[in-house]
């Protein structure tokens, strides 16, 4: 085969792999009439994309960024636990051996279990969307108070059975030592979704990348962003929050503050210059939002 043609075809395979890794399951490799290994890999990758597209009920949630250390668990349709990750075990404070095979009911507050059961009653009515679930974990040996968790539930279908795959984060951990609640990301529990199409999801991902590439300056407003990326403003705002569990401007702020922290800890650059270089208009404003995020003012972290 012509080496140039062969290289072009290999490049198509690489592009496909990159698209899949970015959560774009609608990409397809154009196939010809060759009967060789490249053609066969192309075909398999197209099939994989197709499978993944239906496997994840909500394709936008694939590879979701900024959800660090999610808990995950898989339930059989009888709501017995078949698999969990270490984060979930830590939340339960329970050994794996006595968790697998147990009914999830054992670890949930009764109202939470009933809600979950109700949601699973007719899951296929919502086949385009993941179920947004809320788990109230209780009855753990060392926590007298429950732990609130949110998560997405994806329905995984095999030829013989269905499985419920749930992943998410704890929202509020009630510590026995403190009556105050520690809140982490608190998403809105919307049961509807604006993200129905791959094209919209890809546009919102492009906005996410745009934010990361513009950490040293102010962002345009959402209307200007929506025009730049050819997406409805409302869909951009709601869809972004749905995909990343954070608003556009909050993400921009958070990432800039993370960068500021790295600069403050590791360089002698003056605090005012750090603030200015990350697009903060005034130092008092920078100092305030920094303290809101890290509990201490920027000077606290200098030369530590």
């Amino acid at each position, binding site marked *: 085969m012509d080496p140039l043609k062969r290289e072009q075809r290999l490049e198509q395979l*690489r592009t496909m*792999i*990159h698209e899949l*890794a*970015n959560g774009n399951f609608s990409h397809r490799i154009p196939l010809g009439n060759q009967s060789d290994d490249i053609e066969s890999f192309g075909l398999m990758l197209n099939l994989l994309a197709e499978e993944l597209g239906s496997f994840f009920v909500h394709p936008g949630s694939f590879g979701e*960024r900024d959800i*660090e250390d999610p808990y995950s668990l898989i339930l059989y349709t009888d709501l017995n636990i078949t698999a969990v990750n270490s984060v979930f075990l830590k939340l339960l404070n329970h050994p794996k051996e006595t968790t697998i095979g147990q009914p999830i009911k054992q670890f949930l507050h009764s109202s939470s279990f009933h809600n979950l059961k109700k949601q699973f009653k007719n899951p296929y009515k919502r086949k385009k969307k993941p179920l947004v679930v809320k788990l109230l974990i209780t009855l753990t040996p060392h926590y007298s108070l429950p732990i609130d968790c949110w998560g997405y539930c994806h329905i995984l279908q095999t030829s013989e059975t269905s499985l419920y795959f749930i992943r998410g984060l704890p929202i509020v951990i009630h510590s026995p030592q403190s009556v105050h609640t520690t809140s982490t990301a608190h998403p809105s529990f919307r049961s509807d979704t604006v993200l129905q199409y791959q094209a919209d999801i890809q546009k919102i991902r492009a906005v996410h*990348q745009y934010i*990361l*590439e513009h*950490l040293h300056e102010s962002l345009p407003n959402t209307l200007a962003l929506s025009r730049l990326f050819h997406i409805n403003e409302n869909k951009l705002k709601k869809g972004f929050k749905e995909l990343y569990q954070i608003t556009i401007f909050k993400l921009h702020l958070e*990432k800039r503050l*993370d*960068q500021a922290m*790295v*600069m403050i*800890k*590791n*360089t*002698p*650059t003056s605090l005012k210059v750090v603030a200015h270089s990350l697009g903060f208009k005034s130092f008092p404003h920078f100092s305030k939002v920094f303290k809101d995020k890290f509990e201490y003012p920027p000077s606290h972290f200098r030369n530590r």
Partner: protein
Amino acid sequence: MNFLKTDYAEILIKDGILFFTYLPIPTFDIQLAEQIVSDRLHIQREQAYPVLCDIRKFSLPDIKARKYLAIEGSLLTTAVAYLVAPALSVQLTQFFIRVNKPLVPTQVFTDKSEAIHYLKQF
């Protein structure tokens, strides 16, 4: 100070380029990625440099480390040239820079002189 050797890398600043040579690393996780960025920033003081990153000996960072390196790892860099072993490493590095997109211009090379030539323009 324009040279630093740690357990995981050698860092040298020479002729306006920062040469970052990874040593064999058993586990490349987020903690190591933070340490790497911290050490690099300390040696650079406040100066931004083009970086030649020799990754011919290193193991692939995990996903959190890759994300951290793509964003915080771009601080005070003007461009990055990855120097890799031929074949599979090139593909893996291409994957890294196309999926966990770095914030500065980045290219992959198998030839050191070509990598330096690329960095000289920044």
